[in-house]
């Protein structure tokens, strides 16, 4: 990157005419390349035309389900009609400003927290003491004059964000602990760490969700019941922790062992060496990988629909089965859901690449 900055102005003047011929050789160069350009260009045009036709030209913009039945294009009235349900699920209709505010606050807080300059202990405390409890109170209610809304009524996009974000927030310390256990020199601790990590990584997420949904109640003493949402959340935390542990292990291995030895030679205790010397270096290296993992988990939370939780994908699918719209706007619903997932995942992907450049930890 720094190379481009030292090119003298005179050389740029020489380089410019060459660029046009470069352009031509990139697209046309050899006959084979020209064919590739032609085929790809035709494909792109065809796709663009089909998408434009479906989204706008043949689309229905107002009217009800009858108008949509006649048309071959997208059915926009479906989206406007069912948008609130798809976003918030069965959350009481008059109270839906609460999940909306919670969502906006959450995304705003995430946006601010994404700037590396504001990272620090203060931010962590703000999240733990103010933001997360605040969001919970807003969603659950019961105090401050807010009506109580049980978690069984929660659904839609806020639920998807909650499952993935809270899941990862709790899984991170657990995963770091597991990674340290796996790197420990005490054999029993190491075996326990390896056992847990490999067990969880060897089975599909759906089996752990099943375990949480079906088996966990069996392990509870009489009279103790755990909320269904909380059970799924615990399953996601345990699952995420094993994957985080493997990523953190990679970071730990990258820290030269001399760092550990130097710390011990200075008389620091194991935990002091870990928290003040090793982990800060190791975690800094794996932050981009952790963001990539977060993208994967954000998408994996869709699996909770299989055990009957109303996440965003589930509310969209329920909206499709609404008697008014049944079988009319299925494609519209899925495309809308896909667009929402794509938007957030792609944004996080951009952020991950930004972090990679920021820390310059790219391995390429």
């Amino acid at each position, binding site marked *: 990157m720094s190379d481009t900055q030292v090119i003298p102005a005179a050389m740029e003047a020489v380089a410019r005419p060459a660029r046009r011929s470069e352009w031509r050789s990139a*697209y046309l160069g050899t006959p084979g390349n020209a064919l590739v350009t032609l085929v790809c260009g035709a494909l792109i045009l065809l796709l663009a035309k089909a998408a434009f036709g479906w989204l706008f030209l043949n689309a229905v913009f107002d009217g009800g389900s009858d108008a949509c039945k006649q048309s071959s294009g997208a059915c926009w009235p479906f989206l406007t009609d069912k948008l609130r349900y798809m976003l918030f699920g069965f959350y009481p209709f008059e109270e839906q400003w609460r999940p909306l505010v919670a969502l906006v606050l959450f995304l705003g807080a995430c946006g601010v927290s994404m700037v590396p300059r504001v990272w620090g202990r203060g931010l962590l405390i703000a999240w733990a003491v103010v933001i997360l409890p605040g969001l919970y109170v807003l969603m659950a209610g019961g105090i401050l004059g807010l009506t109580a809304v049980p978690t069984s009524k929660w659904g839609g996009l806020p639920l998807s964000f909650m499952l993935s974000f809270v899941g990862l927030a709790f899984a991170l310390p657990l995963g770091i602990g597991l990674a340290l256990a796996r790197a420990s020199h005490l054999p*029993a601790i190491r075996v326990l760490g390896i056992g847990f990590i490999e067990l969880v990584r*060897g089975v599909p997420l*759906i089996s752990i969700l099943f375990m949480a949904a079906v088996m966990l109640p*069996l392990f509870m003493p009489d009279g103790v019941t755990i909320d269904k949402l909380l059970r799924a959340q615990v399953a996601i935390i345990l699952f995420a922790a094993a994957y985080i542990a493997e990523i953190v292990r990679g970071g730990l291995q990258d820290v030269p062992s001399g760092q550990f030895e130097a710390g011990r030679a200075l008389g620091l205790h194991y935990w002091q060496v870990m928290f003040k010397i090793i982990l800060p270096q190791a975690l800094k290296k794996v932050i981009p990988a952790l963001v990539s993992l977060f993208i994967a988990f954000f*998408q994996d939370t869709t699996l909770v629909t299989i055990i009957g939780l109303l996440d965003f994908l589930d509310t969209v699918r329920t909206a499709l089965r609404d008697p008014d719209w049944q079988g009319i706007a299925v494609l519209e619903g*899925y495309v809308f859901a896909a667009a929402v997932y794509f938007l957030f995942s792609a944004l996080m992907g951009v952020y991950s690449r930004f972090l990679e450049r920021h820390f310059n930890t790219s391995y390429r």
Partner: protein
Amino acid sequence: MLFLNDARFRAVFYQFLAISLVLLAASAMYATASANLAKQDIATGFDFLSRQAGIAISESSIAYGPTDTVARAILVGLINTIKVSLLAALFGTFIGVLVGIGRMSTNPLLSRLMLAYVELLRNVPLLLYLFLWYFLIILVFPPVRQAIQLFPGFFLSNSGLAMPAVEWQSGFGLTFAALAFGVVAALVVRAVSQRRRIQSGKANAGWIFALVLLVLPVLAVWASGAISLSWSAPEAGRFRLTGGLQIRPEFVALLIGLMLNLSASVAEIVRAGIQAVSKGQWEAAQALGLPRSRTLRLVVLPQALRVIIPPLTNTYLTVFKNSSLAIAIGYPDLVMVSNTIMNQTGQAMETIAIFMGIYLGLSVAISLFMNWYNARVALKAR
């Protein structure tokens, strides 16, 4: 706290503490679970495996009926899981390598198109795609009564593709054994002839021997007349087609979903692998006069393979585990069959333990195989 100042004692103490905590938690969970099960009057143990399953499975590669045992039903599910994962891994790798190479193309249109392909697949949940593919298959094809007849005996409808099939009356095992023998013999001959070629520097006709050895045992078995086959063609009934080979839409939707999902990951891995090969290799091959395609095939890809294999292992493990999403669209894989059994017998703990154990065992097997392959292609220090 004098003991705790002794590092050796502390090590033993912490390990003892950790193990006893785990054991304590496990025994407490075991006690409450068995008390709860006794109270709900649910049987424990693995006796239910030999009992009659009583469930119908829509797709099965081995003979199966509702009167067969639970164990056999689980086996049917496992075979379905393996079948769809293997096919998805095979096709997905093929597409992924092509897309990954396309991503590296000097043509900006092609490389951007491939980038869009990868991004579209990676940023949308697999489960959503599965629902979408399944819906599209059902939408595009007509109901069974108006099935499209592609060729005589080939019917395409929204309950899948039905086509004529050969059914083995006898001799399947014999043919399989002959084929396996032929493959092993051919591989041995190939290895020997390759070594000779490298030693002598001359081409030899080893591949002809290998080919003959590959085909001969199967032909011999067939000629001996130990095999009898019968022909089964699909017939149009009132509501469905019976007989023949049926490829169901659930299977196709799952296969497409897994395959495309895998291909995006493979494409990224291949791209990273190719980029990891130093530029000097390209330039040296170019200086020797190799065209770009042969440089890629003969110089760059073999070296990139070393970088590619470890992450590829993870991708195959992922596709194997992701095949469990089958339950969402109703393809009878291991998890779906187990789930049905769980609901019928109520023996959740045993059933979950069985299918988790199977996944774990096969995951370990896949890792071991890929590690072995990785050791083979790894750079050998001579």
